[in-house]
């Protein structure tokens, strides 16, 4: 079976109920046309949108009536359940029945009902939350009462008008028709949808933009045509058709999504487009993910083998029975039973019947409770992982989330890790480090020192914490306190260093809702030289302005500096919010204007030359033009009151803003008053880079103080506040890799384009080099510095500007407006338009932003490395930055060779790959010719690093070349893919996963990692600052990268070894129990008779032996957490599936057969030639089997907690209690065994106790004790010596020491090769000798295998 098909099957089964309702509805609609038409519900007579789902949500799967059939139907999707029901029903057929039919139903009913109860409880919880949500209030326009009335969410229907107030949650997907915001904007927070904490702007539908009065639903007669409900959050297309026949385009900017919260907007009105289950939020809600783990896949193979074994032994017994019958021929023995008809059954017929009977009797061989037990154990494992304090991040108050519940053990088997860089390895906290302006570099040394301090503080603090943590538990309380005291004293000592972690924490709480604003990111120390220049420049400008001199007189260096900072400040989409109300945008309008919409508008606006502040008169004039231009639209709105409301609004605003903004031509005291507040302004940026640059500019007193759709206000030293008229913003996109703003410079009155983008693109867009010597020099120098920055691992951005003449601008604007209004291919046209604008730029400078490594990343990478994990970094960043980060996090080693694949064409790529292949092969031969054993493993470890860029990767992923590429990549210790697209990331993961057949883990934090996360066997999301998309797609969500170490090395190892051992134990247990019955067949004419009472047969698995293995499966630790972290090599155990190899299943089967032989034949001979009756003989066998099985588990259990003891005692007590009660309950029931008083009599017999003593010992003794002890004794010394040898060879002296100290704990066991020769001591000598003289790697490997437990002997 392929992985995919199984996955889908599971998902289907799981999600069937949840989405069934939606799917049904969808199907119905597919028959209709492809669009949805929404009319307003203000028409009194009938409901105009009858087919669309209303806003009532129902996420429950069942109703009271449908629960039983539906739940059963779902449960029967699982093959095992069907099988067990089939067996139970078979029991009702008289000729083949083995047990009392009712009793045979018990296990199936038990298991089905456990699952059903679980489902019911979950469904009930869903129902309760549904009701809660359905009964939330919102304001809906009532056409009867002609006003907005409160209604429940569930009563909202498509076409309803809803009035939304600030901080209200949207009940449905609503098309925004009106907003109290003067810009006709509405801000929403989408944290619940995608987790992004920054505000998003939504715009009123174009036709209603200029509506001045309150929106009146009764005057609305338009029809909305839009697409069918779909789950794409970032897409919405449609038209609104007005009565006049005018059509306007609707886009995602007009749609408010259910679940978002309205912010910064007092009131908004909209019409419901999608409701209830058809909202995008609901369609995106897919519930938890279901995957099959590798272990489970392996287990299924063995379940299949169990079926084969079952069939074989049943056939064997059936043939035996046929022969047995045949030997009597026609002579009927007295004990024979004729068929009900009184005739003889032919041997063949009775063999066939017997076959079926035996399938019932031996059914336990297919472990019915295994599936349930695995689920229980996994839930417990998930719970324990959730609860781990070490995976809890106090700073963000978040802990690890397991979103996929059933692949915990996969964590212990990972072989490849694919990691994103930004935000995963690094903090995604962008800190401005240095910049170069006009070819001069400003190194910001003070800033660098400041950043170094943070690092120091963190490590100091961690030392403190770890010191406290290692104290004995008893003293933990006091030690904790003392640690705190130390902390506090430190923070007072370093009072001026603002930014220990604790303080960062504090700050993060204060500014909980503003992203990218930790003190580290905010407080930038300016470079004195640059600061001086900025001051000088602005004072000169101020002087010039004062004397009405043209600005062009300014020296070009200085003007570049000021332009540079202006660009930093305004070329972004940062929103400024005031500190007191975090979510309320700072309003400061000097003039009210809408963005340029038409050519006339443009001409009109640009004819009068204006300086900084506009006046009310100009704003009203622009309003008039606007209105006149949109006559068609405004005619359908009621306008009489518009004027008055607007003026009122103005008054309000101006009065509100009076205290801060009164000195409109700014003077110095005005600035001072502003400064008070300045420090507290918040910037809400979409990306951390933007925030970093804005904060950097602020450090130079160029601060962004307000942003409106048409205006950006910047405060400059000496110059005060300047308002830039924002003509256009050409947003950032990943293909252009840049963004631009078009503004009208208030000082020069020129139309200026500021562009900010990746150096590679900006450099190509600069003015041709022959333009001027100065430019040439700047470009050349800047390029140098850029290379330098990249070498330091900084993210670089180039800043450029361009001055447009009015004619040029008008020309471009025309095209741009056409593009904007185009209905078809709008995106493409806009893209082209942007390209046209962003040419012939003038380079201003470049910035270097540091993306700091997260805490503990190098250590984690190193540990994962040592654990045998191959780490590939896939990043969209540029090569130099990526390489440097890779060095910083110890992914690449300066000592190792680096292969760099940068090819421009396929041909060159081929040759490159071939060359590097040759190189790696040569290395391979040189370095490890002695290591023949290692070649078989998938990891060919060499000291080679591979760096490949996106373009080359595209060639490498070509079908014809992928094998070669993989070959090269495999031979490298680390692989770094730069400039890769999200698609490439997922292709790489898929390639490695499918071609190398390895377990892959993808870890990332952003939307660009989603596809990679979904493709990998295990997807891990970092719940960082870049939204929740990665987390939503992931199986596990971590707060920080370094937690991966514990998650994989400790929890992964534990989960894997626990589950692997439990599964093997299950197989063993069932096989052992069934084999007892099988041996008996030889003594009862293969008649399907059982000496074990049917009750014991049925409940043995389900009750008597169930609990201890659950406890062990949940809590057992083969190696302690500390050791696992200290010796990451132990992880190899899981990677190579050491705990559960295919042969182990068979070893377990053989062991089970052996043990059952002992458990069968010791009582057999002990009771031979006696008058013992069937069940009196069977009772001790059952007891013995239970003891043996529990003791076996006891030997397997590495750590005994009180829970293990309790569960074993409980099991035994339970067995005897049940047996005694059962045997005393009914003298005539339970045919055919009638075990009345059997157990009671047995307990009086000395023989019973004698049997109970010797049998488990005999069954387990030869298997475990001597071999284990022998190997242990041998290895204790061999192992120590081996470790010592390697420790002297390698630097790992501490490993040796810890090894000796922890010796008793790390159960030293040698690999299979050593065990095989454990009796011939000479062999071991040679083996370890070889280990001693082998290469470094071999010594390592040898040590590893010493640590790794050799499962071969243990025959679980």
């Amino acid at each position, binding site marked *: 079976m392929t992985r995919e098909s199984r996955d889908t099957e599971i998902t289907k089964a799981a999600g069937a109920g949840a989405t069934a309702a939606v799917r049904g509805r969808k199907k119905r609609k597919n028959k209709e046309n492809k669009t949805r038409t929404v009319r307003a519900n203000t028409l009194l007579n009938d409901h105009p949108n009858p087919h669309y789902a209303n806003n009532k949500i129902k996420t429950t799967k069942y109703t009271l009536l449908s629960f039983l059939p539906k739940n059963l139907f779902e449960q029967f999707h699982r093959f095992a359940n069907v099988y067990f029901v089939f067996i139970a029903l078979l029991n009702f057929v008289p000729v083949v029945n083995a047990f009392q039919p009712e009793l045979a139903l018990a296990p199936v009913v038990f298991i089905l009902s456990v699952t059903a109860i679980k489902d019911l409880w979950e469904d009930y919880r869903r129902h309760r939350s549904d009701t809660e949500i359905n009964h939330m209030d919102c304001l809906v326009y009532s056409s009867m009462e002609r006003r907005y009335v409160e209604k429940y969410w569930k009563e909202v229907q498509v076409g309803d008008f809803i009035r939304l107030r600030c901080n209200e949650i949207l009940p449905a997907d609503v098309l925004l028709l009106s907003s109290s915001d003067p810009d006709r904007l509405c801000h929403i927070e989408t944290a619940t949808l995608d987790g992004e904490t920054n505000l998003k702007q939504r715009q009123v539908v174009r036709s209603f933009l200029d509506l001045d009065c309150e929106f009146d639903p009764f005057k609305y007669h338009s029809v909305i045509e839009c697409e069918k409900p779909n789950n794409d959050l970032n897409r919405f297309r449609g038209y609104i058709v007005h009565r006049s026949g005018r059509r306007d385009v609707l886009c995602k900017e007009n749609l408010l999504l259910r679940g978002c919260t309205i912010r910064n907007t007092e009131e908004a009105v909209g019409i419901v487009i999608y409701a209830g289950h058809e909202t995008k939020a609901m369609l995106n809600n897919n519930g938890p993910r279901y995957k099959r783990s590798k272990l489970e896949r392996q287990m299924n193979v063995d379940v299949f083998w169990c079926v084969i074994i079952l069939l074989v032994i049943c056939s064997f017994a059936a043939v035996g029975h046929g022969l047995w019958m045949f030997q009597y021929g026609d002579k009927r023995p*007295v004990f024979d039973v004729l068929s009900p008809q009184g005739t003889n059954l032919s041997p063949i017929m009775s063999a066939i019947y017997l076959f079926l009977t035996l399938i019932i009797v031996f059914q336990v061989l297919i472990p019915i409770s295994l599936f349930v037990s695995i689920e229980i154990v996994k839930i417990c494992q998930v719970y324990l992982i959730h609860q781990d304090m070490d995976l*809890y991040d106090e700073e963000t108050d978040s802990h690890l989330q397991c979103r996929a519940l059933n692949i915990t053990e996969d964590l212990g088997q990972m072989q490849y890790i694919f990691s994103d860089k930004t935000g995963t390895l690094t903090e995604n906290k962008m800190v401005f480090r240095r910049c170069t302006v006009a070819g001069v570099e400003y190194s910001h040394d003070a800033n660098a020192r400041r950043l170094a301090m943070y690092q120091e503080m963190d490590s100091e603090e961690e030392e403190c914490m770890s010191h406290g943590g290692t104290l004995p538990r008893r003293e933990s309380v006091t030690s904790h306190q003392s640690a705190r005291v130390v902390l506090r004293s430190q923070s007072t000592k370093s009072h001026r260093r603002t930014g220990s972690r604790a303080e960062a924490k504090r700050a993060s*709480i204060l500014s909980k809702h503003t992203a990218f604003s930790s003190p580290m990111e905010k407080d930038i120390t300016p470079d004195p030289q640059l600061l001086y220049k900025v001051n000088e420049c602005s004072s000169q400008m101020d002087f010039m302005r004062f004397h009405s001199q043209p600005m062009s007189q300014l020296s070009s260096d200085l003007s570049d500096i000021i332009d540079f900072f202006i660009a930093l400040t305004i070329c972004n989409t940062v929103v400024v919010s005031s500190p007191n109300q975090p979510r309320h945008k700072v309003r400061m309008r000097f003039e009210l204007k809408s963005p340029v919409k038409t050519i006339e508008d443009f001409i009109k606006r640009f004819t009068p030359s204006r300086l900084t502040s506009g006046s009310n008169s100009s704003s009203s004039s622009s309003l008039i033009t606007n209105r006149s231009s949109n006559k068609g639209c405004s005619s359908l709105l009621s306008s009489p009151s518009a004027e008055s409301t607007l003026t009122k609004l103005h008054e309000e605003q101006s009065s509100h803003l009076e205290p801060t903004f009164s000195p409109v031509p700014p003077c110095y005291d005005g600035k001072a008053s502003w400064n008070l507040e300045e420090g507290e302004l918040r910037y809400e940026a979409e990306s951390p880079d933007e925030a970093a640059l804005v904060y950097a500019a602020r450090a130079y007193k160029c601060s962004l103080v307000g942003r409106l759709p048409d205006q950006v206000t910047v405060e400059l030293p000496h110059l005060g506040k300047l308002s830039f008229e924002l003509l256009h913003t050409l947003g950032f996109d990943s293909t252009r890799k840049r963004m631009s703003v078009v503004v009208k410079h208030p000082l020069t009155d020129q139309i200026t384009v500021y562009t900010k983008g990746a150096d590679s693109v900006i450099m190509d867009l600069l003015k041709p080099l022959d333009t001027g010597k100065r430019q040439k020099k700047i470009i050349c120098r800047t390029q140098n510095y850029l290379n330098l920055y990249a070498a330091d691992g900084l993210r670089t951005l180039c800043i450029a500007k361009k001055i447009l003449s009015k004619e040029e601008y008008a020309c471009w604007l025309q095209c741009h407006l056409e593009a904007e209004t185009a209905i078809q291919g709008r995106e493409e046209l806009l893209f082209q338009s942007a390209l046209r604008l962003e040419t012939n730029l003038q380079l201003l400078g470049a910035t270097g932003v540091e993306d700091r490594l997260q805490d503990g990343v190098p250590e984690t990478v190193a540990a994962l490395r040592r654990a045998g994990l191959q780490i590939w970094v896939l990043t969209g960043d540029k090569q130099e930055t990526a390489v440097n980060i890779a060095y910083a996090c110890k992914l690449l080693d300066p000592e190792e060779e680096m292969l760099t694949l940068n090819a421009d064409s396929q041909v060159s790529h081929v040759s490159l790959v071939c060359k590097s292949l040759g190189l790696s092969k040569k290395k391979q031969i040189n370095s490890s010719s002695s290591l023949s054993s290692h070649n078989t493993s998938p990891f060919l470890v060499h000291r080679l690093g591979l760096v490949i860029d996106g373009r080359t990767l595209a060639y490498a992923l070509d079908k014809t070349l992928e094998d070669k590429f993989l070959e090269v990549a495999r031979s490298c210790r680390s692989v770094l893919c730069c400039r890769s697209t999200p698609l490439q990331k997922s292709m790489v993961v898929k390639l490695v996963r499918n071609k190398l057949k390895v377990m892959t883990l993808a870890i990332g934090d952003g939307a660009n990692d989603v596809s990679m996360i979904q493709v990998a066997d295990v997807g891990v999301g970092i719940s960082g600052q870049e939204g929740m998309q990665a987390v939503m797609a992931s199986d596990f969500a971590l707060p920080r990268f370094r937690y991966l170490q514990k998650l994989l090395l400790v929890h992964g190892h534990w989960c894997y070894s626990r589950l692997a051992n439990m599964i093997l134990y299950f197989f063993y247990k069932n096989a052992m129990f069934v084999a007892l019955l099988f041996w008996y067949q030889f003594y*009862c004419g293969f008649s399907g008779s059982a000496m074990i009472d049917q009750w014991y047969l049925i409940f043995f698995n389900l009750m008597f032996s169930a609990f201890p293995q659950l406890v062990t499966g949940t809590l057992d630790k083969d190696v302690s957490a500390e050791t696992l972290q200290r010796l990451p090599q132990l992880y190899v155990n899981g990677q190579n599936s050491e705990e559960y190899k295919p042969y182990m299943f068979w070893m377990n089967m053989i062991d089970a057969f052996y043990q059952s032989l002992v458990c069968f034949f010791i009582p057999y001979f002990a009771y031979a030639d006696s008058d*013992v009756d069937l069940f009196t003989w069977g009772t001790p066998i059952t007891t013995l089997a239970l003891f043996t099985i529990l003791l076996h588990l006891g030997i397997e259990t590495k750590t005994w907690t009180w829970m293990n003891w309790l569960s074993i005692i409980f099991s035994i007590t339970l067995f005897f209690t049940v047996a005694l009660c059962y045997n005393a309950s009914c*003298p005539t029931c339970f045919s055919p065994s009638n075990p009345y008083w059997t157990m009671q009599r047995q307990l009086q017999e000395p*023989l019973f106790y004698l049997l109970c003593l010797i049998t488990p010992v005999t069954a387990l003794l030869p298997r475990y004790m001597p071999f284990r002890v022998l190997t242990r004794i*041998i290895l*204790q010394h061999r192992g120590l010596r081996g470790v010592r040898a390697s420790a002297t060879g390698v630097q790992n002296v501490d490993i040796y020491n810890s090894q000796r100290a922890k010796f008793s704990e790390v159960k030293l066991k040698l690999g299979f090769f050593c065990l095989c020769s454990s009796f011939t001591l000479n062999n071991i000598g040679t083996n370890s000798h070889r280990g001693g003289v082998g290469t470094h790697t071999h010594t390592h490997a040898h040590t590893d295998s010493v640590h790794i437990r050799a499962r071969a002997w243990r025959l679980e």
Partner: protein
Amino acid sequence: MVKEELSTENRPDNTAFTQQRLPAWQPILSAGIIIPGFVLIGLAFIGIGVALLVTSQSIQVMEIDYTGVDQGSPCFKCTDSTVSNCKCEIEFTIDKLFEGPVFFYYGLSNYFQNYRKYGASKDASQLSGDLDYFTSPATECDPYIKDNNDKPIVPCGSIANSMFNDSFVLSRLINGAKEVVPLDGKGISWWTDYNVKYRNPSITPLKNAFNGTVKPINWPRPAYELDTSDPANNGFINQDFLVWMRRAALPNFRKLYRRITEGNYADGLPAGDYSLEITYNYPVLSFDGRKKVVFSNVSWMGGKNEFLGIAYLVIGSLCVIMSIVMLIVYAKFKFPDED
């Protein structure tokens, strides 16, 4: 101060359980524990084994096969199934006192009382004296529910139908005269079977309860006449019936017939010649079965069985041997020759 206000609602509980730090005992198989442990276990087992063997040795058992396969055998004449009410007599000698109480068993081999369908073929409710099941026995008894005249069979089912019906008289030959050894047939079945599980209907005389029913096909007499000598030993609580109804676990089995506890024989069977008169009814040759009688006395651990003693001895010595091997290996590695 601010620290305390940190929101920590998601903070996991810091308990030993959730942090997987439960105090745990790690059984360590170190040589210092294992070797003495093994020696102790080994010695204990050897001790038990010796005790068991000694006990078992003291038990006397005498088996006499009376199937009559050989032509020279006294019961050969009875193997012909056409002969009815055949009696044969086997003489044997006891060399020394057969210590009492002597248990007198009959044994069958190659007889599958554990055959699945056979085992199910009875009606527990009928056997507990429920008159409703007299008239309509449970279907499990198929095909021994009703006879050809459609009259219900009581007790129904295959087990009852196949009840062993040979009888034995043991006499001691004293100077050519026969002295019948008194056989005690009381209490040979389980107390719970006799008192709880099997009940006769509370109708007197017992015969009336069986009105309208027929005896099992193979039975010479109906259930209420099983023991003509003792009226209380009839119906479903007849001791021999109870013993038979308790199915044997294995195809070669013995069942208690009588105990010799009375009179001159309370201390056992004195040395001398004995004669066993057998009423040979039960056919076993059709399935190659054998019949025998077994005289045995019992100890605290049951009948004669040397297996368990030997098993204990073997395992015990294995433990000791292994501990010695381990000790050698341990010494060799603990104090290596070189370095």
